[in-house]
């Protein structure tokens, strides 16, 4: 073996540079949001106001909540393809039972969260691919929603309308709501000691199991959190639209996934960022309709243009993070 030596091995990477790299990684989502905001400000300066933000970002609240919901399953290396249909179902429950018979409504919504936890247990115990299970569930939620509300209609409970209609001084409500959502999710997943276990189960499940933690409980907890934020997303959506439709949340599945990825998350490895996810959701919500309207793109082309913007933003993210690795 080696002869003992007094000198210590040198640090091949200085810790300071490492932090800079992490900082850059964390700042990327904010950068894309800033770009979209700049574009809007340039096209229509009047949109950058209290009233403009309230209007433009109103629908961003349910999208942000759905994105956080998606983020929890992605943290455990799963994907929820049913979140859109689920948000629609919650919307239908909110516009009917929750208003007419609040007790049943609350019980049903709590039951939904329990169903999500059970899905997590099923996926873990039977070792099923989550995409298949949640794709199946999306038809179940959609079917239930249509049974409950065959035609668009219903009415949101008054307390929900009141909450979503709050006009706080100085800061537009959607921005305030986004802040609260981001902080709650950040503290819950990134700062608490159990949140560490949840993320670890996505990073190296074997290690978490060996350390004596229950992977079943972790998976159930992640799915229950998805269910909880899915319920919140459905409630927020109905609070804004005031009435429901079984298909109201259909676009949310892909939006939520794109939001997580845009926010710096990765599909595998437990690498997610709650703050990034909320910023990603805001970016998507802004890039969706306000930006396109200001660019005078006809409604026929807006969906395609929306997709194009999504590709550009995600590609920029990949390019920037690759450069960052090379450095």
């Amino acid at each position, binding site marked *: 073996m080696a002869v003992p030596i007094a000198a210590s091995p040198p640090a091949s990477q200085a810790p300071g540079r490492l932090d800079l790299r992490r900082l850059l990684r964390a700042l990327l989502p904010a950068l894309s949001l800033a770009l979209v905001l700049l574009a809007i400000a340039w096209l229509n300066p009047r949109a950058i106001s209290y009233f403009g933000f309230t209007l433009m970002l109103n629908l961003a609240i349910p999208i942000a909540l759905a994105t956080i919901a998606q983020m929890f399953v992605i943290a455990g290396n799963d994907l929820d393809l049913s979140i859109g249909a689920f948000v629609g179902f919650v919307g239908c429950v909110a516009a009917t039972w929750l208003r007419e018979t609040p007790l049943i409504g609350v019980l049903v919504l709590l039951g939904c969260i329990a169903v999500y936890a059970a899905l997590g247990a099923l996926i873990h115990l039977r070792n099923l691919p989550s995409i298949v299970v949640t794709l199946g569930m999306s038809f179940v939620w959609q079917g239930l929603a249509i049974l409950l509300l065959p035609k668009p209609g219903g009415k949101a409970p008054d307390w929900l309308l009141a909450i979503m209609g709050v006009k706080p001084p100085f800061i537009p409500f959607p921005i305030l709501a986004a802040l609260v959502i981001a902080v709650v999710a950040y503290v819950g997943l990134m700062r608490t000691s159990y949140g560490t276990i949840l993320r670890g189960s996505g990073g190296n499940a074997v290690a978490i199991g060996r*350390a004596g933690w229950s992977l079943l409980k972790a998976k159930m907890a992640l799915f229950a959190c998805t269910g909880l934020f899915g319920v919140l997303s459905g409630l927020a959506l109905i609070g804004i639209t005031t009435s429901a439709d079984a298909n109201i949340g259909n676009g949310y599945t892909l939006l939520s996934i794109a939001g997580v990825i845009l926010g710096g998350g990765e599909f595998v490895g437990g690498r997610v960022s709650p703050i990034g996810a909320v910023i990603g959701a805001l970016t998507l919500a802004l890039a969706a309709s306000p930006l396109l309207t200001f660019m005078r793109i006809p409604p026929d082309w807006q969906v395609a243009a929306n997709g194009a913007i999504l590709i550009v933003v995600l590609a920029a993210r990949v390019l920037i993070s690759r450069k960052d690795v090379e450095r």
Partner: protein
Amino acid sequence: MIVAGPKLVELDGVEKHFGAVRALDGVNLIVGQGECLGLVGHNGAGKSTLMHILTGTASPDRGRMTFAGEEQAGYSPGQAKRLGVRCVFQELSLCPNLTVAENARVFHPGLTGLNWRRTAGALIIDKLDAIFPGHGIGASDLVQDLAIGRRQMVEVARAFTVTDEPVRLIILDEPTSSLDAHSARQLLDFTRRAVAGGVSCIFISHLLGEVLDICDRIVVMRDGRTVADAEARTFDRDKLVAAMGGVDAQVREARAGTTPVRGHSPLRVRARPRRQTSTAELVAHEGEVIGLAGLAGHGQTDLLLAIYAAALGGRGNVEVTATVALVAGDRQADGIFPLWSIAENIGVRSLARLRGRLLISRRREDALANFWRGKIGIRTPDVHDNILSLSGGNQQKVLFARALGSDARIVLMDDPMRGVDVGTKLEVYGLIREEAASGRTFLWYTTEADELKHCDHVYVFRNGAIVADLTRGELTEERVIQSSFEEAS
């Protein structure tokens, strides 16, 4: 089997079967309190299975286990932790997406409350400071950003941290395989100190020198049984190898003398590391075995990758005049395709040659795989079995077969012998010599000083640059270590 003093663990007739394979075939083992027990044996001898039984992640099919005088029934990982059993597994068990402090918290359920992050960080950094002074790791570093050697340091240090449960038995499974000589020494010294403080230790390593150096007693395993058990001082290297049933120890000294004159065969590689300020450069000619030495993670792998990129058409200050193949060091991450068969894993580097008309010819692929199975001794009944059915050493042989079976004239090796048993190593060394004699060039990064003896020429790296350029005649371990700590001139 004499153990002085009280016994901590006693295994009696433990058996474990996986299908038809008898991983453990009636093992008796005693670990005394405050004793450092060495465990050696070839890959597949049953050491890892035994460790899984001790840590509760596998349960024995038959046999009894006694811990501190109490017979254990329904033994589980949780129970093992409560009793104070800690294990550093061969495959790293850190979560790459978490920070160093968070990984410490995963290990200690008691670390909760508002300040858990700071407590966990202090806990792990204190232990790192104690074991590896000058480690250069911060509590908030993400594990994915750390080099593999530093990850292993964190892993080892974490096993020694204490919160509410005591540490009574530490199992170190190949703990030095990714560490450079200096850090390995630090770990061995610390282990001795811990054992002196009353902790028991089971030390598993393929580096027999380490085992002889730090263990009180050595147990040799073969084919799922213990075949020798005696105090460490009654063993020497040759006796251990003989007990393991390995290849004749004399083979390793077979290649002595004869320094070939350089420059007579055609140039194959001329490369300068990116951070090199002096004029030193790495030169390799046809038929040479070139060693890349130095502490782990000082730019050796980077240079190999730069050479590989240059061969694929990249640019830079690298000149390559022939085809190149790479044998990866981190086999799970960069080497094998886990879903593919052995034959597919061997053939993937040679697809152009295996093609008949448009599609891959199954016949040619099998022929290639069977040829190398025979030549390099891959222990499998059928090359169509999944690659994961092989033990770690045999998987590594498949990676060698992939490179050697290809048309590459230059083979780059990125510390390929990590955690490979002595028998396999000796076989591969012989093969490398044979291939070099027939005109292949090898560039070989290794963290094991013994392997440098097989090289014609050795370059020592420090901080991403070449600091010493040693011919075969000048090569001694002291020279290499001395150069590893010199500043680049």
